[in-house]
């Protein structure tokens, strides 16, 4: 049974090699990618079921029991987020095939998109599943290395510069990550997360606090927490829509996941964490203000992404079961919604030929379907009921009010304010791009660069993939009942931590 935990990591890695070997057969690559992701979706669903019913599934790689070897752990949290992430990856792959960005480079070099995308999937899965701090670093490296390749796939000067900002900031944070691991190992003599929790208890408080904060910074850079968020709005908007979608949906969320996992599993803390609440408020406000200052649709969405990272930090800052339930729900909601919005942005540019809001108009008339596909996730992001964003936001607000400290109450007010600013930002997009006079699509300044700016040619695959994602955001709202229950159980697991520790250190039943 526990071998299933390795599938989301090893299968795409192996398939990536195969895909590389079939570089000249586009169809084989496509079907292979979709097949592999489909299998992982099923696998993740099974993992979630077993984790929820029977407790965490643990696989000790190489047969070496936990603190010595590396353990892969699928508990409720990991399995749930994995499932959502892979569903999104599947839809985005469908969209990419529809947009034909996968075929770029065919004829000049072997196609790299599919293999790299699969490696990215493997990295994301590993980041969720690993129970080992150093292995988490490896997971981030796999993810980031693939993302460097995906973001610099097309070489205009602008894009390379954006890619450089992204790459160098990420590499710097990796160096910091590595330094942190060194310090952790020096202080505790272990890098296994479950084991770390025990070892930390024996250290004096000052180094423990310093380590906790260092981890906040390391994962804060990854998840674009203010004031470490600068790189994101400068780099994401310059990649093709589906790639930005996958980065926005998954990479930052993996950072948040790592932050939650490490902080809560390893360190002990009372509910309501003022520092995190403060960072959350800063992230929400700076992001939302940034979004209001943009004319570029993708940049605006990137700032909104930053802003909503603050919502998740807020839930972490509340630091009790209700707060974490809210975070988990919010992550599930946000992964789907943010990916959808970037995909829709890709559709929009296909119709308008531009990403500048001031040069769009009348889209609701040109394509009512795109209008609907935009409206649902946009309203959801703004937390308008009955969409998924409302459900997740409600969980957060209840947690913020329930915990009862002044900091939490102030932060709760900021959550409400940010919701309003988000609604303003997306309503402005609606007002500028979807209303108004119908405009002719703009000519393409660089026809060889058909990725970012549209050609007026929208394939059905793109629309279908976006539709699938929009439906899944609606499903998140419809299934709010069971989802909230699983999230609450996952949050309880996180806070107590016993099930996780017992599963990883206790039996060694797997290997």
């Amino acid at each position, binding site marked *: 049974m526990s071998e299933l935990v390795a599938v989301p990591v090893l299968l795409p890695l192996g398939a*990536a090699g195969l895909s590389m070997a079939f570089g000249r057969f586009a169809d084989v690559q496509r079907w292979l990618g979709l097949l592999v992701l489909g299998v992982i979706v099923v696998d993740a669903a099974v993992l979630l079921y077993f984790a929820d019913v029977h407790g965490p599934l643990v696989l000790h790689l190489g047969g070496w029991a936990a603190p010595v070897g590396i353990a892969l752990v699928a508990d409720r949290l990991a399995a749930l987020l994995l499932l959502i992430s892979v569903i999104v990856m599947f839809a985005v792959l469908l969209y990419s095939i529809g947009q034909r960005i996968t075929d770029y480079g065919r004829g000049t070099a072997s196609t790299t998109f599919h293999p790299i995308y699969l490696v990215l999937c493997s990295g994301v899965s590993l980041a969720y599943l690993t129970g080992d701090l150093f292995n988490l670093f490896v997971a981030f490296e*796999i993810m980031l290395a693939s993302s460097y390749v995906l973001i610099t796939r097309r070489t205009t000067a602008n894009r390379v510069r954006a890619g450089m900002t992204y790459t160098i900031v990420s590499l710097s944070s990796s160096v910091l990550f590595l330094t942190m691991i060194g310090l952790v190992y020096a*202080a505790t*003599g272990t890098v296994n997360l479950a084991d770390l929790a025990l070892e930390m208890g024996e250290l004096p408080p000052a180094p423990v606090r310093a380590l906790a904060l260092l981890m906040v910074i390391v994962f804060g850079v990854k998840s674009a927490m203010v004031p470490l968020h600068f790189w994101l709005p400068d780099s994401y908007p310059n990649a093709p829509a589906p790639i930005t979608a996958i980065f926005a949906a998954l990479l930052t969320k993996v950072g948040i996941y790592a932050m939650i996992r490490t902080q809560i599993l390893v360190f002990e803390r009372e509910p309501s964490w003022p520092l995190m609440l403060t960072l959350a408020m800063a992230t929400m406000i700076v992001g939302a203000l*940034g979004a209001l200052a943009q004319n570029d649709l993708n940049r605006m969405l990137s700032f909104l992404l930053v802003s909503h990272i603050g919502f998740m930090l807020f839930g972490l800052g509340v630091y009790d079961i209700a707060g974490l339930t809210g975070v988990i729900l919010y992550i599930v909601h946000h992964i789907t919604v943010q990916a959808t919005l970037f995909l829709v942005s890709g559709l929009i540019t296909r119709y308008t030929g531009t990403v500048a809001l001031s040069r769009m108009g009348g889209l609701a008339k040109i394509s009512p379907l795109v209008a609907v596909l935009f409206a649902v996730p946009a309203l959801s992001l703004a937390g308008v009921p*009955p969409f998924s964003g409302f459900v997740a936001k409600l969980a957060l607000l*209840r947690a913020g009010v329930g915990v009862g400290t002044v900091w939490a109450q102030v932060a709760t007010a900021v959550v409400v304010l940010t919701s309003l600013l988000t609604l303003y930002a997306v309503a402005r997009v609606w007002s500028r791009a979807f209303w108004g006079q119908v405009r002719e699509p703009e000519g393409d300044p660089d026809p060889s660069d058909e990725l970012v700016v549209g050609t007026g040619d929208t394939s059905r695959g793109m629309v279908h993939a976006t539709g699938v994602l929009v439906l899944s955001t609606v499903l998140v709202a419809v299934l709010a009942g069971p989802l909230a229950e699983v999230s609450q159980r996952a949050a309880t697991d996180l806070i107590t931590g016993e099930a996780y520790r017992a599963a990883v250190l206790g039996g060694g039943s797997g290997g």
Partner: protein
Amino acid sequence: MLALVVSHLLVALVLSLVSMRHSRAIYPVAALPPTAALCWALAHADSVLAGSPPVTRMNWSATLGLEFAFRLDTLALVMTLLVSGIGVLVLLYCRWYFGTPSGDAKRSASLLLAFAGVMFGLVLADDLLTLYVFWELTTICSFLLVGQSGVSRESRRASLQALLVTTLGGLVMLLGFIVLGESSGTYRISELAADPPDGAAVAVATGLILVGAFTKSAQVPFHNWLPAAMVAPTPISAYLHAASMVKAGVFLVARLTPVLSEVSYLPVVTAVFGLVTMFLGGWRALREHDLKLLLAYGTVSQLGFLMVLAGSGSYTGELALAGMLLAHGAFKATLFLVIGIVDHQTGTRDIRELSGLGRRMPWVTSVAVLAAMSMAGVPPTIGFVAKEAAFETYLGTGAVAAVEAGIVAGSVLTVAYTARLLFGCFASKRGAVPTEAHPVPAGMLLPPAVTALACLVLGVAYPLTDELAATYAERAAGSSGEYHLGLWHGFNQPLVFSAVTLFAGLTLAAHNARLNLLRSRLPRPLDAQRGYERIMGSLERLAVGVTGRVQVGSLPTYLGIILLAVLVVPGSVLLMRVTPIEQLRWWDNVLQLPLALVILVAAAGVVRATRRITAVLLVGVIGYGIGGMFIVGGGPDLALTQFLVETLTLIAFVLVLRRLPARFTETPSARRVRLPKVLVSLAGGVFVGFAALIFSSARDTPSRVSAEYLEHAEEGTSATNVVNAIIVDFRAFDTVGELSVLAVTATGVASLVLSSRSARRRKHARSDWRQLSATARPTAGEHGERGSA
């Protein structure tokens, strides 16, 4: 009940898919669900009045306390009469108003129906969160209905304003709901009302909830979105912004009065805001020339009046509220629909242009007069009946008398603008050419005629109205009183007030021109529109300012901030609680000293280097120095790896450097920040050094894991070198991962190199072709040359 609500939405969805050609036929179909809702509500009226309200519940998420809970009590029944009744009439009216098939007609049909559905859900809601869900949905419907196709800038602006103001209130209200729900342990309104909560949290929650009610019901200072929303087509204004949606705030206060009965400041706040709104709205209505705007400010004024009554909490007050809700719905819908007819048939709704319509449209005029009588409070209409009750409520001394005076003053203004409306719209004016008007189709006049008749019937058949209102008032106020709604209570104070109001109002209307002179001289301290624009303007500036300062776009700055964050946050924690570093030795081996010196000197040299090659070589020196440290420390295999990596990096660097300028380009601004950069880097290095010292001395027992590695390496993996054992066996998966990283990076670099090479090749090919065509056609070639130059 849920099924009824959902049926509205489903039919709306289906209608939105029907082709545009059938847009006239859409409206009668759209009127079906609200008709069903109305019939259903009336069929249950008996059991509602008998005190056994129908209830439906559906769970959404028990964990989050989310459910759909509906309950048809008397207040809900009154509101359903308004929402569904007027909904049906407006939808039928739309068929004539929108006339020719158009996108606007079709979109409005499904949106209006969807709105009727969510509004129906809102009035039935028995759960705070259910109520919020429908509350926000009405806002979204309003946004889309006001904006229409969004072609005109004005409608876009107005819809955005309405959206933002009401959502602001909605979100604050949600926060209030949550505070209320968390502190009292339930979100169900009927449960809350049965056992009213008490305490500071409830007082705070009330304040927050009132913000929501005030924004939705356009109370001063949030009122301005309502007149701005008048850019919408008239039936939409009639339905959303007069008869139903804007009453949601008043409804909310009425709904929660029993719940918040322990909050003593509620009646005071609603009275103050309500009276200010009532007065300012009426005052402003006297100035407007656009009939629709005049009515809109009239609505603002009336909403203020309703708000005063909703907060009163007394039996008579609730009685007056129920009467007034019905009255206002009926007369305001009538007047809006009539003005829609006038606008539609004459092409204008400006008082200064209209003349002589009374003769041309006698039926329309009589309908309007009937509604206007109700609005002004002339017997025997329901408006008079309800207003009498309102006057009765605030008979008394002190603060109560002040409220009474306020209501009377507001009512005087109401009479005045009613007269202005009637006279301006229908009278023949001296010297004005009678306005041309198309004949009015009977179907278009029917809906306003029905509502106008309702104004009369509800007043004449007052015992019926009284029964409905009394059941509501008894439950809302928790007690019953002597007073009954009626046309005749004898010669008493309220009757005097009614007479005074009518007389003073008509006098005021007659002297309106002089009043306007006075008005133009008064300062306007409470210009809400300017306030809104100023706030939006400063928000814009703030957004641009903050983002411009934060998002500087410079990579070195970003890296510096990351480093600073490390120094400030964990660094300060370490500094503040310094743990003693035990067993500190300066060196283990004398050879470490010269190596350290070499590394430090090389590092300093890198900072000072001006040539790229020098910097690269010095970085290499640092790397080799560290490798040397490994040898001295007893790790020859590590050292070997280090040397190999350094050598490879150096070679790669040298290859790249061939393509770059020999020296670093350094701008003056970069030179200025050089010292800070050096300092931050230095501090970073020192931090990591000290942290390493502190952390490695934090533990006094050897690592359990390292011990196990050493123990298992030989027999478990057959390796004599534990590092190898770790890399290829214990933690082999890390190695697999890192290998994939290498493979991916190599692929990425290869595709970058190959694609830039092929791009170059393409460019060459293009210029070749251009040369070729240039030789073939000299003139075109010249063009091409110039173009490329």
